[in-house]
C-alpha cells in the first residue's frame, strides 16, 4: 500500500475538479465572513479610535472574541438558523470581527497626538486629519488586524464542511468517499492556503506602510513576527489595557 502522504498528491491531481470546487467554496465563505466583518468593524473601529472613546468596548471585544470557541459558536447558532451555510457564515463573521475592530481602534487611537495637533494647527478639518494623517499612519496596524482575522477565518472555515457549508472541510468530513489520501490532500491544500493568505497580507501590509514608518526587515522577519493582535501583547494583557508595538 502506498503511503497516504504520497497518495494525497495523486488525489489532488486525479480529483482536481472536486478539490478546486471545494477550494472555491472555501475561499468564498471566508471572503464573505471577512468582508461582512470589515464593513462593520472597520468604520466602527476607525471612528471610535478617532474620537478616543469607548476604549473598554473596542479592546475587550477582542478578549471576548478569543474566548469564543469556533466549534461552540457553530453549534449554538445551528439550532437557531439551521444547518448549512448561514450557520457557518454567522459563526465565522462573529469570529472575524474582533481583531478587525480592535486593531482599527488601537491603530487610530495611538497615532502620536503631537502629529494630530500639528495637523489641526495647520488648519485641517477633523475629516482631513482622519483621512490624511491618522489613517495613513494607522494602516499597517489596521491591515495586521485584517490579516489576523483572515488567516483565522480561512483555517476555521474548514469546520464548515462538517456543518453542511462545503469547502475543503467537506473532503475531510467524507473519508468514506475520498479515502485517507483525500483527507491528507485536503489538509495539504489547507496548510498552503493558510500560509498564502498570511504571505499575501504581509505583502499588502508592506505596501501600505508609509515610507517614514518602514523598517527594513526581511520577509522572513515579518512572517516570524507573532500575529499582530494588539490585545495579545504582553503589556496589554498585563495591564488589562492596550498598547501596541510597531
Amino acid at each position, binding site marked *: 500500500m502506498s503511503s497516504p502522504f504520497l497518495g494525497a498528491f495523486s488525489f489532488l491531481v486525479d480529483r482536481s475538479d472536486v478539490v478546486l470546487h471545494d477550494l472555491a467554496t472555501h475561499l468564498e465563505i471566508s471572503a464573505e465572513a471577512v468582508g461582512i466583518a470589515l464593513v462593520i468593524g472597520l468604520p466602527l473601529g476607525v471612528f471610535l479610535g478617532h474620537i478616543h472613546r469607548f476604549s473598554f468596548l473596542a479592546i475587550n471585544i477582542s478578549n471576548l472574541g478569543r474566548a469564543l470557541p469556533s466549534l461552540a459558536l457553530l453549534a*449554538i447558532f445551528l439550532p437557531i438558523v439551521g444547518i448549512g451555510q448561514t450557520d457557518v457564515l454567522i459563526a465565522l463573521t462573529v469570529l472575524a470581527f474582533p481583531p478587525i475592530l480592535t486593531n482599527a481602534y488601537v491603530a487610530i487611537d495611538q497615532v502620536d497626538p503631537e502629529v494630530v495637533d500639528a495637523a489641526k494647527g495647520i488648519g485641517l478639518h477633523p475629516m482631513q486629519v482622519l483621512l490624511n494623517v491618522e489613517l495613513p499612519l494607522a494602516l499597517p496596524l489596521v491591515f495586521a488586524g485584517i490579516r489576523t482575522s483572515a488567516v483565522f477565518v480561512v483555517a476555521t472555515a474548514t*469546520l464548515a464542511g462538517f456543518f453542511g457549508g462545503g469547502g475543503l472541510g467537506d473532503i*475531510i468530513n467524507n473519508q468514506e468517499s475520498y479515502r485517507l489520501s483525500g483527507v491528507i490532500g485536503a489538509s495539504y491544500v489547507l496548510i498552503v492556503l493558510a500560509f498564502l493568505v498570511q504571505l499575501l497580507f504581509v505583502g499588502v501590509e508592506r505596501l501600505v506602510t508609509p515610507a517614514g514608518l518602514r523598517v527594513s526587515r526581511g520577509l522572513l522577519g515579518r512572517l516570524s513576527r507573532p500575529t499582530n493582535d494588539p490585545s495579545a501583547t504582553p503589556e496589554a494583557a498585563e495591564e488589562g489595557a492596550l498598547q501596541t508595538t510597531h
Partner: protein
Amino acid sequence: MVPFSVNAGGGPTIPNFGETSSCVQNNGTFCWDWFTQNWSSRVDFQARLVEHVELTVIAVVIGFAISFVLAVLAHRARWVVAPVTFVGSLLYTIPSVAAFEILVTITGINDVTVEIALVSYTLLILFTNTLAGLSNVSPDVVDAARGTGLTDTQILVRVELPLAVPTIIAGLRVAVVTIISLATVAALIVPEGLGKPIFDALGAGVFNTKFIASGVLCILLALLADALFVGVQRVLTPWATARRAR
C-alpha cells in the same frame, strides 16, 4: 443497554430516553430536562467537561515547560529568538483540522496525537510572553541587583522572573483560552471533550439541545478560565491594582 419502551398504541418501539418530554419530541431549542438527564449519564456532559479540562491543562503545562526553557535560553542568547519565533509562527499558522488529520496518520488515534498538536499551538504565545516579561525588566533594576553582588542566575530567579510573572500569566491566559477552543476540534480524532457531543450530534440528526448544551458549556469554560487568570494576575500583582486605583 438502552432501555426500550412500547408506546401505548402498541406501535413501533422507540428508545426510551428517560422521560421523553414534549420538548425533546419536538426538538425544542433547549430542553432543560434532557440536559439534566444527560449531565452525568449517557452523553455525560460532566465527563466531557472534565476531559476537556484535562486535554487543555496537559497541553498548556507541557507547552509552558518547553516555552519557559526556550525563553530563558533566548533571554541569555538573543540569536535563539528568531528561529524559535519563526518555527512557533509556522506551527501557529497551520489550521488545526489539517494538523490533527495529518498527525493522526503518523502517531495514531490517541491522546498523544492530540497533545502534540495542542502543545504546538501554545509555543508561540507562551514563548513570546515569557521572553517579553524577562526583557521588559528595567535595566536599572538588573544593574542594582548586580551591584548588590547577585550572580546572573540569582538575578534571573530572584529579580527578573518575579517581575516577569504578570506578563507570563497574561500569556498563559491567552494560551489556555486558545487551547480550550482548539480542544473541541480534537474530538475529530479522539472521542473526548466537549467537541464529542457536537460531532456526535452532527452525525446522528440535528438534536438542538445537544448542540446548545455543548456549545454553551464550552464558552462558559473558556470565559471561566479567562476570568480565573485575570484573578490570579490581580492576586500576584497587587501593585498593578493599586496603580489602577490611583
